[in-house]
């Protein structure tokens, strides 16, 4: 019996050894598998297909170009004309969101996936080039459109009026000066204009970006003989007429600012209405037949007010003919983006 057990034990060991010997152990396989897994993970990370995409190797990775010139391009302020009626060149203001590099930084810390080394964000010219999963590219697009553009490109419609009204009405309206007019006061003014009791001398409207100074101007440039250059010789003298230009008319130069509360708009404005006598007064001179002297009636106001959005506000008042006053009114309306983007 003992001999039989010994023989059986010997057989068991021989059977096991024959398999182990044939395989040489699986440590090598495990190590090889670990290596391959690591290589495959690296390969997949380098070109992982986007959500819902086929893993076809021929397909380009999702790539999007985002033109951002409107966000990083410099903007211009249009200053009001000077006292001489000349219009200065526009002033370059900064871009609403700084430089392209600053915008890229902003995207990297806000919507760009922090835990991923996939894809890239590249700035060139005034365009951002991004490669990411389709979902992440949509996030970037949404952030640019809904968060940044809706503020940076906020447009404000601005209107201004110069009206001449009876003093009694002026007193009523001016009592609300600095505070937006009540609808019934505005209606009273419109009724007075309709009946001829009041007169709209000038009205201007312009839509512009929040933060930008814009200008709308209607007027007249007229040439006149404003001087003589005297030429004197031994026995003669000559008057060389010098032609000058006088500018009259009205303008509204205005910069709207919109803060966190969109129900109010701050308006930094210059409102002007310069009338001119239809005929030049002529001052007789010894030679040349006299020089012409224009006579201007200047009215204007320069101020900064915070007005309720969509409501008229009296921003200035001045004297007119007997028992009449001149009022300057402005109104601002926000024009949110509609249907923008994709």
């Amino acid at each position, binding site marked *: 019996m003992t001999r039989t057990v010994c023989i059986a034990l010997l*057989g068991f060991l021989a059977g096991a050894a024959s398999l182990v010997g044939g395989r040489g152990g699986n440590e090598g396989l495990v190590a090889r598998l670990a290596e391959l897994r690591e290589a495959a993970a690296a390969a997949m990370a380098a070109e992982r297909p986007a959500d819902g995409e086929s893993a076809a190797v021929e397909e380009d990775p999702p790539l999007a170009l985002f033109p951002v010139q409107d966000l990083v391009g410099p903007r*211009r302020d249009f200053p009001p004309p000077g006292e001489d009626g000349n219009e200065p060149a526009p002033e370059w203001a900064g871009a609403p969101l700084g430089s392209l590099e600053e915008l890229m930084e902003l995207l990297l810390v806000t919507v760009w996936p922090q835990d991923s080394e996939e894809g890239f964000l590249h700035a060139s010219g005034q365009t951002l080039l991004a490669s990411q999963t389709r979902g992440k590219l949509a996030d970037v697009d949404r952030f640019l459109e809904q968060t940044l553009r809706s503020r940076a490109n906020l447009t404000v419609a601005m209107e201004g009026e110069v009206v001449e009204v009876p003093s009694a009405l002026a007193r009523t309206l001016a009592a609300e000066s600095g505070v937006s007019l009540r609808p019934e006061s505005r209606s009273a003014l419109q009724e007075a204009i309709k009946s001829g009791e009041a007169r709209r001398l000038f009205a201007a409207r312009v839509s512009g970006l929040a933060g930008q100074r814009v200008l709308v*101007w209607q007027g007249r440039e007229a*040439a006149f003989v404003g001087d003589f250059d005297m030429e004197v010789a031994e026995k003669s003298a000559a008057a060389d007429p010098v032609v000058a230009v006088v500018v009259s008319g009205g303008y509204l130069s205005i910069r709207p600012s919109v803060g966190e509360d969109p129900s109010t708009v701050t308006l930094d404005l210059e409102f002007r209405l310069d009338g001119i006598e239809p005929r030049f007064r002529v001052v007789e001179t010894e030679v040349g037949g006299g020089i012409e002297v224009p006579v201007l009636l200047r009215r204007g106001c320069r101020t900064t007010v915070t007005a309720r959005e969509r409501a008229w506000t009296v921003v200035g008042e001045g004297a007119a003919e007997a028992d009449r006053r001149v009022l300057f009114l402005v109104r601002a309306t926000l024009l949110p983006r509609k*249907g923008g983007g994709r």
Partner: protein
Amino acid sequence: MRLLAAFLAAFLLGALSLGAGEEGDAELLGEIERLTALLRERAATLQPAPQEEMVLQLYDVTDLCSPVEDEQFAPIRLAKAGKGDLGTEECEPSAPYDADGLVELIRTAVAPASWEAWEGASIEVLGGMVLIRTSPRVHAALARFLAKLRTLLARQPSVEIVAVAVGPEEFALLDERPRELSPEDAARLLAKPPLGAARLRGFDGQQTARREGRERSYVGDYDVKIAVESAIGDPLRMQIFEGVAFEVRPVLDRGAGGALLHVRLERALLDEPMRARATEYGPLELPALEFTRLRTSLWVPVGTTVVLGGCTSGERSCLFLATVTDPG
């Protein structure tokens, strides 16, 4: 015999007891085979296939690297502008990409790993051309990428500006519709005889300018020459322009649902007849010009007519309307 039978039974039992672990090895081998195939496939996308040769190809990118010149605004004035005055600003031409920037972009966007890893892969700039050596498959990807860039850069919006006269009542009516006009209002206003109109088309982001009207000459001065006993005036001919001068820079949204529009617009009309004053040398003509000027930037929806702005005083009124279209 009994001993032989016991040995054989025990041999089989030993082999079977280890055979249970054999199934785990089969899984290992299967996994190794799958990963090897995957890596082989992956390598095929990065490495030129054995039969593929590196191909040298020339890409003409002049269109992507050419400077786009902004057109200069020419305001309408009686007096000539001096240096630094309005209308004399310098416009710096700018290109969407410079050649080096474009090469950097290609290296980043198209097969980024290949440019360093592949022996013989190269990108060289030759003036407005880029000479690229890579596999046919990367060339194909590159062509698709450049086509994408061109699609974006080829956008050429069209902006139509119309100046119309409206009565005070009509001007006031617009108060309730500050931006987009209804199709009926737009049709009514656009049906009026325009005070001036022009369509401007350029690249997305390019500043275009247009002046349309009539240039009129007049005797605006005399060059007086004096001698010992006499003086004479040499008449000087001058020109004055009347009509419209528009400067427009549209910047389209990515999806072109709207555009940021930067404008400088003006419309001017000469008084007729021109006032003249008698001088000892002859009549001196003194023109007068009525004008409306608008300078602003705003966001506008594409395909809709919007009111940009305008003025009214007494009998004079002028309203500027704009319609941006994106044919692309």
